[in-house]
């Protein structure tokens, strides 16, 4: 016999008798085929793609285990399942496709995983108003494929497109690679439909905007499951672009590149993709380019005449800032490889610790934040690479995305925590936001107090009002201390 699987972060769990009763009642509500206490289902939903989970997996452990998995197929079923869990004080964690990077779905206190993947219908496509209403569990690539068939795009292409759900995008406040033109998920979402901890269903209105007090359905965007379950959303769509223009440039240094982008954004041009790589990443992604220079790749798309005009304005600004043209082939290469993250699997097996840490900078501190974070990451013994790029560009700043790889001599988790402490301290000291689009989950909750100040208490009060028994995704977003995961 094998030993029982080791759990690292498991806190208290409801009595099994309580779960068994819940399972019987849930089976009565949604059908026994949609309820499972099968150990393979529990093992499979207990984690996401937080690198620490991968380290533990290679050591034969899991972060924590749920006690039940349920697959509702309608918003009403979600409501019934939550109301029942609320009565019994059973923890509930919503689950999409598990591509989160910060341990956001770890069932720290056992309970029930609500897997949304059987809610995967595209309810309506309103071509007149350019709106689609879609259920939370649909896979991102299949969502986009469906829209493309009808001549539209959803404009949202996170690196996880093929391994994430629409509900996951909303829950973690995601950003896609084409976000400078189409916006982030909160810009794309017109309204959400959600269920609160006590089973209350509420839906936002699908109007462009309203001046009717705070839009409460927008509270769900970025809530990472702590208030309830997002079950559907109405999102903006766009006609498929008439023209796409690809361009790349190199700069002698990051300062020139950042200034060029700032001026492009100031001009009013809105390229879909803007990515400026430091010299290390330029060398890694585009070996033909000199690793002494910094590559900028741009993708502009939309109506032909607008693309032509934007192309002209953008070229003017980047060339005036010392850029050298590199043609379209590097952008084509990026388009072909942009979802590929195979290096992580290989490096982890070789004993590496790695992660990506994205923060938001303004223009005035873009370079200084990069330098400070890089210095902090390189300063931890064992680090062999700390690189970065900017993407998701705004008139007032950009997302900075750092990648770090190390082979620590010390315990991997200790090393991992040192990396993050250094990166977060540097980011906070420079005035950046501690996350741009990966969200908070479990791990980044350790810095939520520094990020929000009194704002975190406001968030706690809202949580207390919407989920008084604290059943929804406990231990996440830094709202409470998790004894087994400290700095």
């Amino acid at each position: 016999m094998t030993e029982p699987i080791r759990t690292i972060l498991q806190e208290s769990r409801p009595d099994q008798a309580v779960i068994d009763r819940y399972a019987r009642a849930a089976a009565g509500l949604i059908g026994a085929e949609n309820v499972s206490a099968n150990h393979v289902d529990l093992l499979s939903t207990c984690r996401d793609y937080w690198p620490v989970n991968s380290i533990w997996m290679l050591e034969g452990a899991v972060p924590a285990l749920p006690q039940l998995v349920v697959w509702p197929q309608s918003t009403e079923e979600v409501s019934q399942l939550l109301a029942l869990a609320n009565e019994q004080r059973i923890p509930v964690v919503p689950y999409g496709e598990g591509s989160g990077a910060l341990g956001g779905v770890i069932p720290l206190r056992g309970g029930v995983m609500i897997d949304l993947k059987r809610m995967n219908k595209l309810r309506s496509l309103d071509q007149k108003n350019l709106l689609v209403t879609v259920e939370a569990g649909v896979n991102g690539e299949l969502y986009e494929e469906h829209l493309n068939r009808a001549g539209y795009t959803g404009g949202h292409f996170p690196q996880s497109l093929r391994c994430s759900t629409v509900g996951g995008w909303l829950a973690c406040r995601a950003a896609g690679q084409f976000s400078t033109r189409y916006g982030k998920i909160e810009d794309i979402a017109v309204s959400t439909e959600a269920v609160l901890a006590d089973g209350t269903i509420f839906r936002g209105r699908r109007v462009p905007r309203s001046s009717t007090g705070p839009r409460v359905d927008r509270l769900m965007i970025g809530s990472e499951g702590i208030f309830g379950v997002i079950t559907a959303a109405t999102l903006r769509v766009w006609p498929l672009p008439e023209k796409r223009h690809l361009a790349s440039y190199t700069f002698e240094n990051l300062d020139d590149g950042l200034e060029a982008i700032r001026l492009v954004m100031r001009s009013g041009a809105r390229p879909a993709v803007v990515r400026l790589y430091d010299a290390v990443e330029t060398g890694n992604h585009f070996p033909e380019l000199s690793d002494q220079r910094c590559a900028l790749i741009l993708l502009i798309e939309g109506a032909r005449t607008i693309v032509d005009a934007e192309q002209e304005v953008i070229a003017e600004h980047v060339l005036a800032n010392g850029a050298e043209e590199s043609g379209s082939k590097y952008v084509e290469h990026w388009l072909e490889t942009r979802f590929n993250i195979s290096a992580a699997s290989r490096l982890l097996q070789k004993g590496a610790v790695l992660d990506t840490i994205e923060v938001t900078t303004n223009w005035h501190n873009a370079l200084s934040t990069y330098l400070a974070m890089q210095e902090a990451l390189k300063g931890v013994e064992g680090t062999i690479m700390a690189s970065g790029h900017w993407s998701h560009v705004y008139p007032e700043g950009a997302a900075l995305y750092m990648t770090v790889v190390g082979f620590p001599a010390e315990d991997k988790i200790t090393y991992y925590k040192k990396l993050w402490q250094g990166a977060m301290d540097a980011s906070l000291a420079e005035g950046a936001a501690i996350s741009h689009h990966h969200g908070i989950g479990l791990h980044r909750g350790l810095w939520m107090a520094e990020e929000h100040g009194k704002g975190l208490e406001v968030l706690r009060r809202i949580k207390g009002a919407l989920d008084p028994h604290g059943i929804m995704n406990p231990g996440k977003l830094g709202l409470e201390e998790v004894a087994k995961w400290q700095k």
Partner: protein
Amino acid sequence: MAEVNMEELLNCALCPNICRCECPVLQVLGREAVAPSGKARLAAMLQQKQLNWDEQVLEAVSNCLGCRGCTIYCPFAELSLCDELLNTRLDAKDGGIKLSVVDPCLVNLSKHGSPYGQKKGSSAAGDSGAEILYFAGCTSQANHPESIEAARALFREAGVPFQMIEEDCCGYPAEVWGDEELARQLAAENRRKIAESGASTLVTNCPECWLTFTDRYPAWGEELPQEVVDGPTYFLGLIKAGKLKPRQSSLGKVSYHDPCIWARTAEKTAEPREILERIPGLSLEEPLSCGKFTRCCGGGSMFQLSFPEASAAIADRRLAEFPEGAAIITACPFCREGLLQDGEGRRVLELIELLAKTCCR
């Protein structure tokens, strides 16, 4: 027995799986345990003795169509999760675990040489000593004798002598169900009969048989002495040689479903389309996913027998990708069965039957 490649298995287990959108089983069941990485993690845990075999584990790692849809976007060039899962399942028998739902099928294979039970009659036919051996496969033998009739008619029309042997199942179902010993027994028996036939070329219209003959038989030490040719390539050759002359078809709009093995393993996507193009009166319209991007019909890895409900749901999902009003043409007996699960009663034909209808008097 083939070894599990632990490094490749872990590459998948540690990956967020950009293939998830192309795993039909995951997309219809919505269960993490049957996601590519979910299955890879369970398989890795079995290898590392962190998990024991039980029917729940076997059920999860058997939930693979072998369609290689997960290879479309897979960043690991050397990884074939379908093969790793198949190799993983071969260990289950030693652990005393089997899928109870396929137990009767394994008994049938052992007793009758067919997963479907006692054969309906002898399959031996044709001209003894002919250079061409046609191997129909157990699914056509049991469920679609009309496709075998079509093949015979085409050989006669082309004036090509052919023979058929008393076939046993090629061994594919036994292997996907984890009984390699039985698969090898069936292979040895088939190889003996095929070798004794004296034919120089074996033609098969069943992709599963083709895969087993060309890939598994050599691995089991049962390599066939003949050249093994897929049906679409062979019959296209007869058309090109002027031996078959397709006449007008009244079918009108048709859409071709690429069987996974023909498209992704054999890379035979052009040949069937060229046959369709040479039949006057047809207009070919592609389904949403086609060629090497094809999506499984729900018939891979004997799913219709192992997991009939999931198989039907996968077929529904695939059928929704075809243009309205088009007859669906395919070149695999399992795909034919999968797509015939269509509740809307769409016309589904094997390419070989369509060809026979237009070529033979």
